């Protein structure tokens, strides 16, 4: 399931971010089953869940770090590595797949020179083969952050990426 590598990129969290997280934990630690909502909030604040952040959560909730790490690596949405400035997702759900999204994905890989789950060296793009995002009417679909591009062919990929390369 989720990736279990620990990020080699140095942790750059600020005191402000930590305070925000600690406030959220304080307000929610007594809610039943609060670990996942807290981790989701932490990822919202930091963009990913480095080991330093997992330690803050484990200590504040008084649970073993192993438990936090276990949850972080079980679910696909939690990421231990920072994402690119532009997060690219190519849907490989069934509706997109039967309409050729594998070709779109392969094109994105070769254009960016990275595979699924990786980030480009300049930190600009990260690529993910995603599960169904639910706009099957537009299949095949690719997302860049919150922008959605539909009814694609592989040839559309370089044009779309070019828009972001200069941004």
């Amino acid at each position, binding site marked *: *399931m989720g990736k279990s590598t620990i990020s080699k990129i140095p942790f750059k969290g600020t005191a402000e971010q930590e305070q925000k997280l600690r406030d959220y934990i304080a307000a929610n630690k007594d809610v039943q089953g609060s670990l996942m909502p807290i981790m989701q909030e932490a990822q919202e604040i930091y963009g990913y869940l480095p080991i330093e952040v997992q330690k803050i959560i484990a200590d504040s909730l008084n649970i073993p770090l192993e438990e936090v790490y276990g949850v972080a690596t079980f679910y696909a949405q939690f990421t231990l590595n920072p994402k690119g400035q532009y997060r690219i997702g190519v849907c490989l*759900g069934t509706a997109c797949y039967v309409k050729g999204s594998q070709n779109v994905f392969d094109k994105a890989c070769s254009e960016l020179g990275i595979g699924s789950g990786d980030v480009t060296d300049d930190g600009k793009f990260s690529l993910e083969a995603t599960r169904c995002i639910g706009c099957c009417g537009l299949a095949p*679909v690719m997302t860049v952050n919150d922008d959605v591009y539909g009814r694609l062919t592989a040839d559309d990929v370089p044009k779309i990426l070019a828009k972001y390369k200069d941004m």
Partner: protein
Amino acid sequence: MYRSHVLVCGGTGCSSSGSAKIRTEMENEIKKQGLENEVKVVQTGCFGLCALGPIMIVYPEGCFYSRVTVEDVPEIVSEHLLKGRVVTRLLYKETVTENGVKSLNETNFYKKQHRIALRNCGVINPENIEEYIARDGYAALGKALTEMTPEGVIDVILKSGLRGRGGAGFPTGRKWALARTIVPDADQKYVCCNADEGDPGAFMDRSVLEGDPHAVLEAMAIAGYAIGASQGYIYVRAEYPIAVKRLRIAINQAREYGLLGKNIFDSGFDFDIDVRLGAGAFVCGEETALMTSIEGHRGEPRPRPPFPAEKGLFGKPSILNNVETYANVPQIILNGAEWFSAMGTEKSKGTKVFALGGKITNTGLVEVPMGTTLREIIEDIGGGIPNGKKFKAAQTGGPSGGCIPAQHLDTPIDYDNLIAIGSMMGSGGLIVMDEDNCMVDIAKFFLEFTVDESCGKCTPCRIGNKRLLELLNKITDGNGTLEDIDKMEELCHYIKNNSLCGLGQTAPNPVLSTLRYFRDEYVAHIVDKTCPAHVCKKLVRYEITDECRGCTKCARNCPVGAITGKVKEKHVIDQSKCIKCGACMDNCNFKAIIKK
């Protein structure tokens, strides 16, 4: 009073193609023309015909504008809303007849549908509780709390014949009755809603949550009253941001109106609902795994018994129903069990929502009475297969289901018939495949999904499915033997019989059903070393035909230099060098390169 209403779809499909910008532009244009007191713009949930999005309907005429762009908005406002002249070029062509515009309900796409779960989707503004109330919203909760006993509610649901819409089809009333009685002295019980719609290609639950969130809240409160619970949880996929946002708005509004919280309708009944977000794990659609996840752990399933009705969320008696199941409940309470059970087949009552996707003209959401045939859904409602291609199979039930071939197109769809032909209802994804899809590749696609999503707790699922996938890869690589087919069948049955939860027990279904109906394709891969649909890369051969004019374009575009030939002479591909990328075929101007 407004003289005109403009309904703009705000579902995920249309939002993704820019419907929010269209709505803003519409409001601006209307103000510019000074029509803001005459025309009202309403953001609604999904209309269902996602293929034509972004969609807009203008009432009272009922004009259905499709694939609208921001640039079209001024024309719609100045022509239609100001001068009363319909913009014919933007109308959905099915609604244009010689005698003018016909009603949307008369089109093939909507004519055969019967909307219960989707009755408010595309009709009301989901972010306004008053629009829901105006459509009899919360009347069923009022009826249940003030006129019915909890046993009476359970009895109506039982008699209606409603079965779980999430896939397995367990009778909803029986689930509720068990949770009410099995632990007589329980201090706390829970009502859960499964909105973790992980089945790729299925988006009916999302549309209900986005288009009619209050229906789910109302039904959960009714369920709480029936089983004696005061707390509900909705577990929804984090990939559905619009659904999450609207659910939260709806919960706050319901609390403000006293329809959630303490002493609802002065009946002494308390009930509240919390939203919990999933984090991308397919196995969390399984009921015990979902509950483990709400508790804040790795979402691994638990052995049953004890069943959740006895020992579920936080160890308390709990029920879990799917979004679409809940969406039916208020209507059943209001209209009675007989009204509901009059629809459908002997053992499957009511309607079912299907998400049509893949190689079909009208991709989108449809709701039809149980017992409708696949042919009616695909050909009449779905508009058939585009580009003149031939139907090969319909896949239902997602990674747990199977592929249904042309010979079973006339089977009336219900829970039991689908199982009999080797598939299952599942949550209602219906993906259509044509002659260009390879069925071995499709089986492999689903198995890759389940291998990736297997939680790893039990061995048959974790290792068995992996071995199964390796055998499939061996076949699509051209290294398979006929004995591999026997091995695969044996392994499939072993995994089905021995896995802990529904994920593993159903994971081999895509392999078994394709082996059952498309064995010839497996044999072609193994014996003839060819992929009849030209999908499996290792088995495809690119060849240059006599149409070649020797323009050298293919040779220049080949990334590995596998193509040679003189100018103005036929070129040749060196098969030992070819990596089968298809660049030559894409670049040939004379259609002189073919796949074999």
